[in-house]
């Protein structure tokens, strides 16, 4: 049998086995497991068969709960069924897991283990999710590496079929799921050999069938449930033996041998670490190294964690063990210890109490936590644990990898400790997401892994920004298998693909002495030296670094590659690293290009080839001077005048030094201050808009569409211009109400992403040169300094009194201060302008419940948050609960507000004698219908609070605690279509039906944007998405129309790019409606495959074609005898095909499935036509809503 190797990541490794050994796959996307489902879907679309010759059916469900239900059903009816998930998704599956296990159903769930959200969400890896399933009855089988993820997926499949115990096969999220390794693939023959087909027939024979009907899933009473529960004991007792036999057979077939508990290390080890998952690889590497120094250490790696074979664990430990440290990658607050630790303690205790004592002397067992949320776990940390075990009184319940300066659990480690991997080559590359660095490095890994005898490993670190994100690639190659499941901190090769990074990151700290440093530089080899910071020069000289430069952007531009420098930098790497002979390297790069892009057309291949060919002539070594000459210092991350928290906590996180922050720096309940993006000057724009007052008509559209809140408008007294910087611009305000005031549009130059939406929407053209508008994109470099001064000056000008602003016109409303600024959303994001508008109109009294998704990431992912406060310190209070419960979460806000308002009003009446009748009457009777009313109410409440301070009664103190609720609050429930249409729809339905005064804003991108473009029920017919690779065949769900069916819900469907005044009016009406409201807002998205600089044109076309008809449904109109439905966009003006042709999500179908495209495009046009007719009938009809509207819904009447 020939051995076949492939360089893939852990997700693909597991999915390959799962796909080929199952018949049905039901999934729901969640990071970091999503690629397993996506790959399976892609293979199914390509009709790749499983090992029995049929391609599995792959189905995307509406939630993980739904996926688990579908899996349960498919299993019960006899299909070999699997699913893939992580974290909260796994938690949603738990109810079904109990059922599946209780019914002794053979299945394997594959889990990329991920942190469960606690004080914060985290997408990264630990075992919190898996450990939460310990009680379900699933077997838990842990892989430590990419190879094992591939292998154990099969072993689990074999064992579940034989044992009938369902298996959860897991591996570490990101560290294994996303690590690229060269592995040996299992062939079909091996898979077939391991899976006994008679067991599969038995699985089918147990299935529900009307041809041999049974009942399963009964309800049992106290008389029998207990006995029935105990009836499975023999099954679970047999399971470990079955797994070991499957491992043994697997070993005979593949040569890769595994045991339930694998021990590695000294046979006479005194100190042993017990550890699960990828950390075991690092521990094993460290053990191997320490043994060469004569240390008696070892590592025990539990593979099968449930059913827990305590005896097998004890027997696998060396009898000589004196101290055993059990490392858990999870935290269970308040427990006696983490799960694995408790199990090991119990196993050893039981051995000594009830069995034949195994150990020469009673071993000490200590437990520790490591690696939460992908925290680095390095050989130095392993050594620190081993060192701790030497002591007489080693710390128990310790932590390793952090500095716990509060409860002092942490061990100290020597960061300079290294294991010595022979012949291993390490390289680190810093790039931007948009420059193709990661893609190039993934290619390089494959070239080396599959083109040489070397083993290869790649791991990629991304930041949480969607625009201008920084990537760091960690690549290792070597003749021996690579067990280093941690980041590289010493590299022979360091690549810096962005010149500006030299001033932001300590790039050369990674370089070993004599390393090679490759810099993408706009300066050539003769001139670059004096352009780099002093500290970089120092390191180059001190470490005797060989220094190469190339102007990769120039080469890429000349080759037609635009901003993607991947091929250029990859060629440089091979040219100067010497990893492969030069000619062979070039050939392999070109082969890889052909392989990757061949199907995308000759032009793409040719321009990549050209980039490769042009590279070498532009690559030059720098003659390094012996002296440091640079005066360029690395600037402070945040300025001295930033708030203390920002300086001490946020700043280090921005600088990439968050790992060094101690426990004491962290707010224990996950509460963070607002307004921190302003301190993170990212400077990612190449061009920024420049205002031309001579052309400007002061329409406000630029500020309204600006996704990043960087275009601001102020209207102010001319006196503030006295100290204006020389290039600060203004003109006389044009609006009559603002006569005598000045008007300025100012851009935040260091926060702008350069998306140019503002330029695109600007309607004012220069009359002498029509290509110019009132805002024009200009290179940022010469503008940065003057515009920074202008921006700082602009910020010092006071905001216009909100009562002087007509909120209902776009041109005036855009003078309102946004309390959402500089988010990390994609450049040109279609969602953020809507959120910004909410904060402009209602931000100082808004509470925002935000569903997990893009908006929770750019809204709440550390280090900084775009939500901010006004000069009074007021602003949106924001929180994210979960993905699935956001509507309910937001309704909870409302319940508190309603209750506390009612309570405050009651107390106010009680305290009337002390507070004064007139103030009480004014407060209680205030309608707060507009901004002026609310302002006055705030004044009254302020007076009230002052009075209450002087009153000593309990009621006064009680009222003081809730008095702010007497000022109207605005609850916003914000999320994407994945939440509103799919996973959260049940809750949304309930909240809308509740009649409570909440405002729901659905940011509808018609696809799961945050997890990478999976189909939602909002995805339109004919659009391509993951899980709809051949185009979605069903209609888009009409959520807005469904919203109108309640009758007492205000509903608006808006598209800012098509009709901004309509959007504004809808937001104002929705908020003013004293009941539930829902705004469904069209949001263009990078997942649409569009020109993001012109996204508002897509909105316009969506409306003009009838794809996105605008309407408002206002129940208040019915009381006036009017039809509550107002169709706000006209009859479709352009064929739907004109709109579809603007977006790759539709167009690519014409390239991949031309016949389907033709059919689906036609059907999509029919959808538009039919819906328009239907809407028209509804809008013209006289029928009043089923539920009569009311000024105040009944649920609120009790609060008055």
């Amino acid at each position, binding site marked *: 049998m020939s051995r076949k190797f492939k360089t893939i990541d852990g997700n693909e490794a597991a999915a390959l086995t799962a796909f080929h050994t199952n018949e049905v796959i039901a999934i729901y996307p969640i*990071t*970091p497991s999503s*690629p397993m489902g*996506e790959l399976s*879907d*892609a293979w199914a*679309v*390509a009709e790749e068969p499983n090992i029995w010759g049929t391609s599995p059916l792959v189905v995307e469900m509406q939630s993980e709960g739904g996926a688990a239900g579908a899996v349960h059903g498919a299993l019960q009816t006899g299909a070999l069924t699997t699913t893939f998930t992580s974290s909260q998704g796994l938690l949603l599956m738990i109810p079904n897991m109990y059922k599946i296990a209780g019914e002794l159903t053979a299945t394997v769930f594959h889990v990329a283990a991920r942190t469960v959200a606690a004080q914060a969400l985290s*997408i990264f890896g630990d075992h919190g999710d898996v450990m939460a399933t310990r009680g379900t009855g699933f077997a838990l089988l842990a892989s430590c590496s990419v190879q094992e993820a591939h292998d154990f997926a099969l072993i689990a499949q074999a064992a579940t079929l034989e044992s009938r115990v369902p298996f959860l096969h897991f591996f570490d999220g*990101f560290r294994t799921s996303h690590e690229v390794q060269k592995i040996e693939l299992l062939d079909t023959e091996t898979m077939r050999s391991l899976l006994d087909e008679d067991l599969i027939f038995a699985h089918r024979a147990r299935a529900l069938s009307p041809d041999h009907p049974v009942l399963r899933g009964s309800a049992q009473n106290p008389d029998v449930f207990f006995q029935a529960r105990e009836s499975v004991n023999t099954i679970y007792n047999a399971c470990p033996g079955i797994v070991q036999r499957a491992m043994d057979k697997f070993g005979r077939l593949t040569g890769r041998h595994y045991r339930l508990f694998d021990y590695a290390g000294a046979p006479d080890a005194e100190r042993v670490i017990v550890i699960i998952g990828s950390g075991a690889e690092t521990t094993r590497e460290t053990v191997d190294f320490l043994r060469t120094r004569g240390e008696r250490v070892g590592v025990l790696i539990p593979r099968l964690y449930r059913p827990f074979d305590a005896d097998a664990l004890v027997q696998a430990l060396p009898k000589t063990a004196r101290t055993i440290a059990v490392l858990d990658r999870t935290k269970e607050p308040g427990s006696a210890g983490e799960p694995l630790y408790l199990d090991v303690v119990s196993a050893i205790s039981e051995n000594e109490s009830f069995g034949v004592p195994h150990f020469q002397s009673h071993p000490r067992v200590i437990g520790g936590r490591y690696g939460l949320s992908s925290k680095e776990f390095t050989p130095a940390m392993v050594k620190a644990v081993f060192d701790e075990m030497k002591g007489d009184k080693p710390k128990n319940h310790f932590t390793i990898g952090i500095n716990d300066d509060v409860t002092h659990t942490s061990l100290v480690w020597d960061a300079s400790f290294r294991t010595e991997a022979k012949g291993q080559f390490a390289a680190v590359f810093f790039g*931007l*997401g*948009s420059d*193709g*660095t*990661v*893609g190039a490095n*993934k290619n390089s890994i494959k070239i080396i892994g599959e083109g040489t005898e070397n083993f290869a490993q790649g791991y*990629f670190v*991304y930041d*949480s*920004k*969607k625009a201008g*994100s920084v*990537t760091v690639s960690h690549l290792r190659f070597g003749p021996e298998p690579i067990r280093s499941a941690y980041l590289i901190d010493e590299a022979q090769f360091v690549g810096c693909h962005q010149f500006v990074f030299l001033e932001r990151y300590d790039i050369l700290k990674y370089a070993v002495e004599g390393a090679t440093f490759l810099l993408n530089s706009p300066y050539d080899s003769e001139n670059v030296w004096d352009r780099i910071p002093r500290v970089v020069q120092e390191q180059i000289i001190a470490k005797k670094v060989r220094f190469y430069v190339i102007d990769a952007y120039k080469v890429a531009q000349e080759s037609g590659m635009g901003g*993607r420098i991947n091929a250029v930098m990859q060629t440089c790497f091979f040219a100067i690293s010497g990893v492969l002979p030069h000619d062979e390297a070039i050939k392999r790069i070109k082969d890889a290009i052909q392989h990757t*892009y061949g*199907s*995308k*057309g*000759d*032009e*793409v291949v040719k321009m990549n080839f050209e980039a490769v060919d042009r590279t070498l002539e532009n690559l030059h070594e720098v003659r390094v001077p012996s002296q440091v000459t640079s005066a360029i210092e690395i600037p402070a991350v945040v300025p001295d005048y930033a708030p203390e928290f920002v300086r001490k906590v946020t700043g280090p996180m921005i600088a990439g030094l968050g790992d060094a922050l101690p426990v004491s720096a962290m707010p224990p309940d996950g509460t963070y201050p607002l307004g921190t993006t302003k301190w993170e000057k990212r400077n990612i724009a190449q061009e920024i808009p420049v205002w031309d007052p001579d052309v400007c008509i002061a329409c406000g559209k630029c500020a309204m569409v600006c996704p990043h809140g960087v275009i601001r408008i102020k209207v102010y007294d001319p006196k503030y211009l006295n100290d204006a910087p020389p290039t600060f611009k203004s003109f006389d305000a044009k609006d009559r109400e603002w006569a005598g005031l000045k008007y300025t549009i100012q851009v935040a130059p260091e926060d702008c992403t350069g998306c140019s939406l503002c330029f695109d929407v600007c309607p004012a*053209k220069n009359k002498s040169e*029509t290509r110019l508008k009132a805002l024009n994109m200009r290179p940022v470099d010469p503008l940065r300094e003057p515009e920074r001064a202008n921006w700082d000056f602009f910020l010092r000008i006071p905001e216009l009194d909100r009562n002087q602003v007509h909120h209902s016109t776009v041109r005036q409303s855009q003078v309102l201060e946004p309390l959402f600024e500089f988010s990390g959303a*994609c450049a040109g994001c279609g969602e953020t302008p809507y959120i910004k508008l909410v904060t402009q109109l209602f931000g100082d009294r808004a509470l925002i419940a935000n569903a997990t998704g893009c908006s929770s*990431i750019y809204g709440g992912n550390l280090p900084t948050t775009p939500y901010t406060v006004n000069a009074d310190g007021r602003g949106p209070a924001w929180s994210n609960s979960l993905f699935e419960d956001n509507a309910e979460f937001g309704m909870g806000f409302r319940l508190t507000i309603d209750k506390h308002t009612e309570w405050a009003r009651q107390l106010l009446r009680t305290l009337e004698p002390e507070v004064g009748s007139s103030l009480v009457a004014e407060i209680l009777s205030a309608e707060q219908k507009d901004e002026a009313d609310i302002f006055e109410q705030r004044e009254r409440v302020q007076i009230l609070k002052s009075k209450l301070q002087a009153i000593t009664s309990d009621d006064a103190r009680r009222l003081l605690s809730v008095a702010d609720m007497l000022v109207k609050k605005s609850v916003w429930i914000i999320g994407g279509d994945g939440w509103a249409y799919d996973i959260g729809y049940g809750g949304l339905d309930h909240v809308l039906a509740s009649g409570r005064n909440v405002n729901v804003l659905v940011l509808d991108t018609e696809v799961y*944007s*945050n997890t*990478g*473009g999976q189909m939602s029920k909002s995805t339109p017919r004919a659009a*391509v*998405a*993951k*899980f*709809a*690779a051949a185009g979605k065949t069903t209609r888009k769900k009409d959520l807005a129309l469904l919203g109108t069916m309640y009758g007492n819900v205000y509903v608006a469907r808006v598209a800012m790019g098509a009709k901004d005044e309509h959007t504004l009016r809808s937001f104002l009406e929705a908020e003013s409606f004293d009941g539930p409201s829902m705004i469904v807002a069209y949001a263009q998205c*990078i*997942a649409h*495959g*569009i020109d*993001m600089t012109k996204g508002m044109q897509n909105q316009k076309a969506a409306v003009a074609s009838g794809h996105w008809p605008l309407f408002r449904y206002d129940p208040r109109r019915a009381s006036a005898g009017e039809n509550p439905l107002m169709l706000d966009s006209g009859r479709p003006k352009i064929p739907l095909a004109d709109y579809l042709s603007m977006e*790759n*999500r539709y*167009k*690519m179908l*014409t*390239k*991949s499935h*031309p016949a389907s495209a033709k059919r689906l495009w036609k059907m999509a046009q029919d959808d538009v036509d039919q819906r328009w007719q239907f809407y028209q009938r509804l809008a013209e009809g006289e029928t009043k809503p089923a539920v009569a509207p009311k000024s105040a819904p009944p649920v609120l009447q009790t609060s008055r």
Partner: protein
Amino acid sequence: MIDLSTTYMGRSLANPLVPSASPLSDETDDIRRMEDAGAAAVVLHSLFEEQLTKDRLELHHHLTQGTESYPEALTYFPELPQCHLGPEGYLEHIRAAKAAVRIPIIASLNGCTPGGWTSFAHQIQQAGADAIELNVYYLPTDLETPGSVVEQTCIDILTAVKSSVTIPVATKLSPYYSSMANMAHRLDMAGADALVLFNRFYQPDVDLEALEVVPHVLLSGPQALRLPLRWVAILHGRVNASLAATSGIHEASDVLKMLMAGADVTMLCATLMRNGIGHIRKILDDMRDWMETHEYESVRQMQGSMSCAHVENPAAFERVQYMKALQKIPSLD
């Protein structure tokens, strides 16, 4: 019985009416309706090389945009199982049209690089097209490009295509050559099987409200007939290539004029867009009526009867006629 048959690029056609390249030939059903209405052949809509290239680059851009940047969304689209990024759709259209009708199918190729033309032309022949019409829509705006280079490019393209196919190749060209007759002659010498006179450039317009340049497609009016009429008449009998007249041919009278000037076929577009595909039948009926009334037996009988070579006063097609025309302009006083 009136004989309407003619010969175009060596092939006998039932009549001289050929719908020219337009969106009307997008659908196979419409091509069938053209045949039913009496069309003698059909020129399919153009395959644009630039469009294919643009589509490929766009697809690549959109499939890579935003990828490998953010850990939760390393890609935004599913892997394409296979891409039809070449002219597959067009080739399939040729095959479907050939299967649907018996009249000749002429494919139309619109490109700008010799490489693109030749590879596509070969595939078009393999798909079953009876002939190819090269649409040389080349609008040089570079101040440094002399007319000779433009002309030579056109010749080179024709030569390249001719060398890669065995089916007839027509060249549809613009009237904007310094020496139209010489250009026609050079194309003729390079092996053009037909000259299609003329390509209509879509001229841009200005939107005064939006202050934007907008593409404004104007369907040809009756006056558009004059330009091809002159050059068909001038070239008839002087080149080996067949002559196809296009632009401004709306009614039977227009067809008859063109035939008399020397056209082998006349091409219809604007009139079918306005009046529908069934208008072909009306033109044919009107032609027969006129020919009967005027006692013509066949199209061949009239073809070239009023060409430059066969009219009493050839100067009517030349510059001297221009002077006379000016002299006839009434005084503005």
